[in-house]
C-alpha cells in the first residue's frame, strides 16, 4: 500500500526565512504528487502538483516543489515566507491507476511576524 511521510509536524519560522518541508512516499510505480494547503478556517486547496515533465514544479504564492524520483521525495520550498503562509500543509500522492489520494499527516507552519 502507498504511504506518505512528512518529516516535521510543527515548523516555526520568522518572516523572510526560507522554508523546506519534506515529503517522502512509498510506491514503486508512476505517481502523481500534490501539495495541499489549509489556511486557518478555510478548506483544503491545491498549492501545486506534479504528474510528468519538469521535476521542478512552481505553484501559487511563490511555492515550488521538486520531484526526486530516486529519493521518492517531493519537498516543498519557498525562499522567503510571509506571515500569511501560516497554515497546515499536506503532501499527497496517487498512482496512475488510482484516483484516491493518500495524504501525509500534515505539517503545521507558523510564521512569526
Amino acid at each position, binding site marked *: 500500500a502507498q504511504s506518505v511521510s512528512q518529516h516535521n509536524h510543527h515548523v516555526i519560522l520568522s518572516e523572510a526565512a526560507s522554508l523546506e518541508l519534506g515529503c517522502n512516499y512509498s510506491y514503486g510505480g508512476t505517481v502523481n504528487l500534490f501539495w495541499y494547503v489549509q489556511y486557518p478556517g478555510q*478548506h483544503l486547496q*491545491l498549492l501545486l502538483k506534479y504528474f510528468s515533465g519538469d521535476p521542478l514544479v512552481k505553484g501559487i504564492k511563490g511555492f515550488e516543489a521538486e520531484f526526486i524520483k530516486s529519493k521518492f521525495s517531493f519537498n516543498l520550498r519557498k525562499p522567503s515566507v510571509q506571515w500569511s503562509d501560516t497554515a497546515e500543509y499536506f503532501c*499527497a500522492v496517487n498512482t*496512475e491507476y488510482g*484516483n*484516491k489520494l*493518500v495524504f501525509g*499527516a500534515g505539517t503545521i507552519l507558523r510564521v512569526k511576524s
Partner: protein
Amino acid sequence: GAGVSQSPRYKVAKRGQDVALRCDPISGHVSLFWYQQALGQGPEFLTYFQNEAQLDKSGLPSDRFFAERPEGSVSTLKIQRTQQEDSAVYLCASSVRTGGYNEQFFGPGTRLTVL
C-alpha cells in the same frame, strides 16, 4: 457559490445514533470522493464515485458506513449506530473527470462529534 459544499458543517450525535452527511460537488464534476480526517492526521480515503457508480469503497472502516450518489451529483455519507471512534471531520472532494492527475476540489468538511 461555485465550490464544493457540505452540510451540516457540525454534527453532534449520541453514541448509537444514525447520521447522514451531505455533499454537493461542483456542477458537472464526474468524480466524487469522501475522506475522513481524524484530529492531527491527514485525510484518509473512504470511497469514490464516478458519476453514480461507486467504484471504490475500500476505505470504509466498517459496514456501518454507507455512501450513495444516486443521480451522479449530490452524495450522502451515512453512518449507522455511531461510535466515539467515528468522531472526525468528513471531507468531500470532486474533480472534473477521472484520472489521478486531476485536481480534487475539497469542501469545508463536516465535523462529527459522537458523545
